[in-house]
């Protein structure tokens, strides 16, 4: 990458810079004309002096002449504006393209960093460099050449003009330029250094913030917030100091500049005046020179500003780029080459060592053969096991020695071979913030395979493609289908789904995904087949619950004509699932439409009374408890902080009755009944008559619902799939009954049976695949993440699968299950497994035993498992 910003600019935009300069120069005569014309309008057309006889061969009177000049003026104004518009757009576009190219190149470099580099460089440093720090460069790149050429040219013209008028005064006018040219860079240099310091300090702050976010748990665990605050405050203080000094120096430079600029006129007035008085210089010449000098000041100032800006941007560029100049950057070829080579035969480690620069070696003098058609276990004491696995997967490159695959240098193979034919799974795999499905097929997305469907017009696509090329960016299409079905041994999407289900079972993740699927919603328009199957299950569930009263008692089904005792009053009123914030339970009491419905069926006063009773009960029950008692959270309708308010409301009602309440107080009371679940809370406040009224309110609510609110609730309809409810809720179409022993697990079992009976399980699992795994997989448990990573690796069917304690987070039972399933699946294929228990090595063809980074012994398990070996020792210690 170019180490200076001008090299970068010239390398990638010389032509554009030339065009820009030409455009700028071409605009100059028009600009000049537009400055000159007003003088002529005033002096010639309006004052009537020096009225030309003819204008372009026509005879004109004074007024017509005025019109013509004014018309010309207008045309010039438009022309100048147009030039500015064109030039600015061109500059802006050029700047953006160059910025895009720069960011892209930096990102490419990140991808090419050797892995150990990331131990020294944190995301907190890298991200601001690529995003915020280079941002101002875009604005500068457009001005980089055009401004100095244009303003410098203007300056030269003026200087020449002055010299022609009077060489002495000309010399006087520029006399201080050399001094300025010498002084300013010297002053600027210190500002530059401070600028560098500032960037470094800001980067460290970004890094610290990043660390705080990653380690937030530790911060709270150890009560170190104050320490972090102090640290940040200190660093912000450093930045403040640096910035303040920059301001002082920068504005001093400005001050000095201005002063020197004004010094020249001083000489003109003093010396020039003296010369005029003594008749050695004509008055006219002095005025002309003064005017020219005034014109001189503007470009000179522009040039100095440009110089400061240039320095600023030069430093920014250099500071960023030097961080990306890493000595042992991976070769570009490794990432971009498209080769294929089956990994067969034997992987030979010859004297391989690995360690960081200056650090101790974690692996040393490793010599071993790993056959790629068998199973090799790696066990050991001390460091180096995981590194050995990563070297075998070519994720790491050896610091010394060679790894060969037959005659081929394994370390020189492109990632199109090692990244597809070999797969490494470590103990803490990374999942991307996307759906589980996307994470599973992640390992199949190497290149775009088939053109995808596009919604955007082809013209726009062509434009975007050519734009990407102009900025030297990748032109791969993200909308294309990137999934390499063949690599997974499948012929298409449907086949792949089936294969994914198999792999999920293999790594024991299927039950988890099934549970995820049950609690997910499905858009019935996008997946009508799922909705139809769920509706079938709902019907089967209904039949089952009706036939068997023992089961029927566990679920209270939604019935439009009946009050649901196990639902909240809110849910009974809506008789549907709220979509969006409008009809969320907490918002109902202040929702005008809901209030309208209650008023229409004459429930408003009743609600107020019930609210009052609930408040009374809550205050009675919970007022004696200390603040923060867990009962508030778990049982009370009223939080501890709200208690006094409700007590005040109750006191007021006791004195003046419910009618005297203020609107806000009414809303508070009205909000309470909505949360009542009669079967659970057993307060006896909803009587049969009240239920009938609520059913009436339910009817009115649905009937009167204005069109603009229709999207805010998904009604429970016995024969319609509810798009806002989960699959499980759609099948149950009702509520679990409170007070039935183990109702949750019983219904769960019934549901599972039903789903199996209707062959719906695969469908539910498929829906579960849409589950978003969260940032870095945080919505999955550690064990689920490991299983997902295993599934991702297995799906690829690599020639050699390399696992490094990849099942450490699983409980023993599922560990055993997954281990034997993987061993079975990999029969006859390459498997290298770093084990955390030596005894597990028994099932492998070969064992490599490491001790403190060196191979202690290797061979068949039977041969090694005898007294006196490290393996024996390790097994004895377990």
């Amino acid at each position, binding site marked *: 990458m170019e180490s200076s910003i001008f090299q970068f600019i010239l390398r990638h935009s010389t032509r554009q810079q030339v065009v820009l300069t030409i455009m700028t120069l071409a605009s100059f005569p028009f600009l000049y004309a537009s400055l000159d014309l007003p003088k002529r309008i005033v002096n010639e057309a309006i004052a009537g002096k020096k009225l030309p006889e003819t204008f372009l061969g026509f005879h004109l009177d004074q007024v017509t002449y005025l019109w013509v000049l004014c018309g010309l003026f207008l045309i010039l104004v438009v022309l100048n504006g147009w030039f500015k518009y064109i030039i600015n757009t061109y500059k802006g576009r050029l700047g953006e393209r160059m910025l895009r190219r720069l960011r892209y190149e930096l990102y490419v470099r990140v991808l090419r960093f050797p892995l150990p580099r990331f131990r020294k460089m944190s995301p907190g440093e890298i991200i601001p460099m690529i995003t915020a720090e280079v941002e101002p460069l875009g604005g500068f790149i457009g001005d980089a050449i055009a401004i100095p050429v244009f303003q410098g040219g203007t300056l030269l013209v003026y200087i020449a003009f002055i010299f022609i008028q009077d060489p002495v005064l000309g010399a006087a006018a520029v006399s201080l330029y050399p001094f300025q040219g010498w002084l300013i860079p010297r002053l600027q240099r210190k500002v530059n250094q401070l600028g560098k310091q500032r960037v470094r300090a800001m980067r460290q702050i970004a890094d610290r913030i990043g660390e705080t976010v990653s380690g937030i748990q530790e911060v709270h665990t150890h009560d170190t917030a104050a320490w972090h605050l102090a640290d940040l405050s200190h660093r912000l203080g450093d930045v403040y100091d640096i910035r303040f000094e920059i301001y002082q120096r920068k504005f001093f430079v400005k001050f000095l500049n201005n002063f020197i600029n004004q010094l020249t006129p001083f000489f003109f007035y003093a010396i020039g005046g003296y010369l005029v008085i003594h008749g050695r210089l004509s008055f006219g010449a002095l005025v002309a020179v003064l005017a020219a000098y005034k014109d001189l000041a503007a470009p000179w100032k522009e040039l100095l500003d440009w110089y400061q800006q240039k320095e600023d941007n030069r430093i920014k560029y250099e500071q960023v780029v030097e961080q990306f100049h890493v000595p042992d950057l991976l070769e570009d070829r490794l990432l971009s080459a498209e080769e294929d080579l089956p990994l067969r035969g034997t992987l030979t480690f010859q004297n391989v060592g690995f360690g960081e620069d200056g650090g101790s070696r974690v692996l040393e003098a490793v010599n071993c053969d790993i056959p790629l058609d068998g199973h090799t276990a790696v066990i050991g004491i001390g460091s180096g096991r995981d590194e050995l696995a990563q070297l075998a997967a070519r994720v790491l490159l050896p610091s010394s020695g060679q790894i060969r695959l037959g005659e081929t240098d394994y370390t020189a193979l492109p990632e199109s071979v090692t990244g597809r034919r070999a797969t490494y799974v470590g103990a803490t795999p990374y999942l991307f913030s996307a759906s589980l499905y996307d994470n599973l097929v992640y390992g199949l997305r190497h290149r775009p395979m088939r053109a995808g469907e596009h919604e955007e017009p082809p013209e726009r696509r062509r434009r975007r493609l050519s734009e990407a090329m102009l900025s030297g960016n990748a032109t791969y299409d993200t909308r294309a289908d990137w999934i390499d079905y063949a690599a997974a041994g499948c012929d298409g999407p449907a086949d792949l789904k089936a294969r994914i289900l198999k792999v999920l079972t293999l790594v024991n993740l299927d039950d988890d995904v099934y549970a995820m699927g049950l609690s997910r919603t499905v858009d019935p328009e996008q997946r009508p087949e799922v909705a139809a199957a769920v509706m079938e299950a709902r019907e089967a569930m209904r039949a089952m619950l009706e036939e068997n009263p023992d089961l029927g*008692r566990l679920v209270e089904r939604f019935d439009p004509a009946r009050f649901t005792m196990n639902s909240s009053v809110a849910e009974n009123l809506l008789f549907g699932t709220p979509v969006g914030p409008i009809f969320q339970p907490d918002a109902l009491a202040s929702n005008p439409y809901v209030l309208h419905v209650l008023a229409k069926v004459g429930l408003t006063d009743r609600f107020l009374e019930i609210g009052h009773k609930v408040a009374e009960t809550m205050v*009675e029950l919970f007022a004696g408890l200390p603040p923060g008692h867990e*009962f508030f959270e778990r049982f009370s309708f009223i939080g501890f902080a709200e208690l006094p308010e409700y007590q005040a409301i109750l006191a007021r009602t006791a004195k003046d009755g419910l009618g005297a309440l203020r609107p806000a107080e009414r809303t508070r009371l009205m909000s309470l009944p909505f949360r009542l679940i009669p079967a659970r*809370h057993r307060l006896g406040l909803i009587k049969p008559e009240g239920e009938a009224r609520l059913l009436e309110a339910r009817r009115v609510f649905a009937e009167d619902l204005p069109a603009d609110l229709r999207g805010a609730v998904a009604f429970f309809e016995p024969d319609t799939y509810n798009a806002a409810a989960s699959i499980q809720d759609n099948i149950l179409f009702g509520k679990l009954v409170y007070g039935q022993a183990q109702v949750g697990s019983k219904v769960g079992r019934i549901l599972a049976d039903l789903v199996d009976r209707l062959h719906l399980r695969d469908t539910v699992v498929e829906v579960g695949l849409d589950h978003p795994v969260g940032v870095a997989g945080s919505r999955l448990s550690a064990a689920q993440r490991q299983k997902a990573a295993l599934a991702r690796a297995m799906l690829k069917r690599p020639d050699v699968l390399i696992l490094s304690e990849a099942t450490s987070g699983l409980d023993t039972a599922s560990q055993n299950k997954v281990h034997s399933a993987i061993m079975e699946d990999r029969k006859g294929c390459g498997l290298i497994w770093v084990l955390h228990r030596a005894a597990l090595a028994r099932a492998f063809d070969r064992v490599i035993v490491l001790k403190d980074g060196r191979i202690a012994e290797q061979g068949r398990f039977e041969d090694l498992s005898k007294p006196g070996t490290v393996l024996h020792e390790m097994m004895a210690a377990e």
Partner: protein
Amino acid sequence: MSIAEEVECLRRIPLFANIDTSKLKLLAFTSERMSFRAGDVLFHQDDTGTCAYILMSGEAEVMVNGPGGPVPVATLASNEIVGEIAILCDVPRTATVRAATDLETLCVPKDHFFQLVTEFPQMGLEIMRVLAHRLEQTTLRLREVLSGKV
């Protein structure tokens, strides 16, 4: 059945007889109603106990594992409490309890019970009184048994 009835029921249990109505109400409100069908098992002997059951209606059988299988030792009716030993001290269930008829209970979780006792020492005192009373009865019975043997 509403909270008010549950409170009445609690009041008839000696352990809770002298405790404030408002505290009983809180206990009832924070406890879960649990219904069992005839034949359902409330808990098995040797399980760890997490809650006590207060019988609101119906009958339950207490059974102890014998050499030839479970032996019924007692029958409980409404307004009786069962399983309280497990929530007062951490011992496994000392018997199996099964619903003899359809059964309505109030299930008092151990931690709620303790939280109430911690918040309202008066309740603790009452419970101490009842337990001491029981201990005295047991001692009396033991003395009778011993004197009968000697």
